């Protein structure tokens, strides 16, 4: 396996310590857990998605491990504006604040609370929150407007996309037109399971999103597609669990990656992957980004 060098410059406007960020919604509700993940080797962290008002989330079961992945329907639980205080101690660290809203204006409101964010990630992709996330993120015009409004806060704006669309390239381009600094691909894939013994859906919310290894080939494909469609950096996300997976995402076109579900197997996944991925004699990551496009 080839090895790469640590990043020497900012990626998509953020000074990442390595190419791997903690994905949104994974251990991202408290400042302390985000700090812990940085200490455990994450090159940057994305917070839980923060919205215009505090939400307790869906009733449980909210997350269930299934073959090859996790299905979850957390329902975007978040402390809303209280989160400003949560991450105040992390000022200066590579903390990307994930935000969501039901309208472009709500995105703007939430963004206005976080003058210290290293960047914003717009959650236009959560598949199990009515009126939020993917339910608005499938509309190119809305995606562009949300991006534009958050862009007015003068920070890098990353737009996170759902794979649950007919053509992800169209949504990616809309984000680019809105001024996005990067595309994050992808959020979870719409999914559900049923308990045959209870004859009812196992998630409290009935349906949710699939993440983890099962979706890796879907995520690679999304990144590969987007790389042909947009000129801004792409952050690959979905099912990454090894250094080879990181390289594969880069070769598909990702400048960096986010890792979520792999935490299920090991909270040390970042340092474990880094041990395999990096070497002082490694090649610059830029050399392999998109190199699989033939």
């Amino acid at each position: 396996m080839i090895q790469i060098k640590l990043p020497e410059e900012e990626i998509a406007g953020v000074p990442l310590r390595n190419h791997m960020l903690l994905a949104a919604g994974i251990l991202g509700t408290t400042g302390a857990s985000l700090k812990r993940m940085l200490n455990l080797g994450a090159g940057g962290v994305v917070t839980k998605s923060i919205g215009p008002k505090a939400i307790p989330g869906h009733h449980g079961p909210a997350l269930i491990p299934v073959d090859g992945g996790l299905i979850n329907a957390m329902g975007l639980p978040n402390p809303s504006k209280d989160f400003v205080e949560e991450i105040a101690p992390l000022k200066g660290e590579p903390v990307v604040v994930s935000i969501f809203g039901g309208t472009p204006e709500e995105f703007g409101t939430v963004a206005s609370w976080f003058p210290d964010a290293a960047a914003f990630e717009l959650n236009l992709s959560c598949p199990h929150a009515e009126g939020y996330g993917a339910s608005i993120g499938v509309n190119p015009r809305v995606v562009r407007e949300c991006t534009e409004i958050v862009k007015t806060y003068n920070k890098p704006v990353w737009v996170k996309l759902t794979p649950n669309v007919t053509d992800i390239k169209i949504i990616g381009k809309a984000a680019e037109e809105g001024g996005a600094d990067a595309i994050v691909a992808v959020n979870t894939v719409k999914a559900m399971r049923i308990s045959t013994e209870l004859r009812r859906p196992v998630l409290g919310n009935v349906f949710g999103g699939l993440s983890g290894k099962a979706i890796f080939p879907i995520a690679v494909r999304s990144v590969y597609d987007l790389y042909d469609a947009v000129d801004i950096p792409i952050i690959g996300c979905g099912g990454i669990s090894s250094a080879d997976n990181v390289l594969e995402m880069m070769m598909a076109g990702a400048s960096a990656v986010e890792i979520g579900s792999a935490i299920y197997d090991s909270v040390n996944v970042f340092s474990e992957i880094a041990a395999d991925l990096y070497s002082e004699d490694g090649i610059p990551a830029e050399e392999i980004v998109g190199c699989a496009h033939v």
Partner: protein
Amino acid sequence: MSEMPEIVTITTVVNETPTVKTFVFDKLFAFRPGQFCMVWIPGVDEIPMAFSAANSITVMKVGDATEALFSLKAGDKLGIRGPFGNGFSPSGKVLAIGGGIGVTPLFTLAASGEVDTFILGARTREELVFADDLAKVSDLKIATDDGTFGFHGFVTGILDQIDVVSYDTICVCGPEMMMKGILDRLVAKGIESRGQFSMHRYMKCAVGVCGSCCMDEHGLRVCKDGPVFTGDLIKTGEFAHYHRGPSGRKE
């Protein structure tokens, strides 16, 4: 590997106290004392519960989900995920201190013969859980807030009467203020790392992913890194000061 909830059928419901019931089901789970499961009450919610035996949970009615659970009877079904978490790891001479429904995980520890002295606390006599069984397997000391049985006062009152330093492990579970009183005493004697505290935080995934149960200041996950923590890990931070509700807001 899939970890879909295991569906169990309730075989017996035991009324322990007016507000506590034990639900016995038809499947066995191999757990260590202090480990817990997520109990899915179909159509209602999924909540964390310690195992009170390999095939039972013992539940105090405190809100919606536990109330719904209380309405279930033999023949009804539940989903169980788990066991989760680390459980207690006692060594040497062991003191257990349980308050209220917090007695549950300590009861299984005592039942496996690992507890020398047990201090059991409750608000009042009729809310004492597992007292008879505990008396058989440990040196049991009881405290009730209202003095209707045993020592009149809190468990810490009993603790002050015994030589706590003579114990190698002090396992604790109960209301956070009770645990705080105990931790303070251990800290005062410089033996807080002998204390093993079973923490309670809002849990959603129970597998260390969602972040709902994380505690300040280390960002440790109660579901996966805990629920049992040694005193040194919790003496600073949020313990006894605040915790987070389902939205992540501090409460």
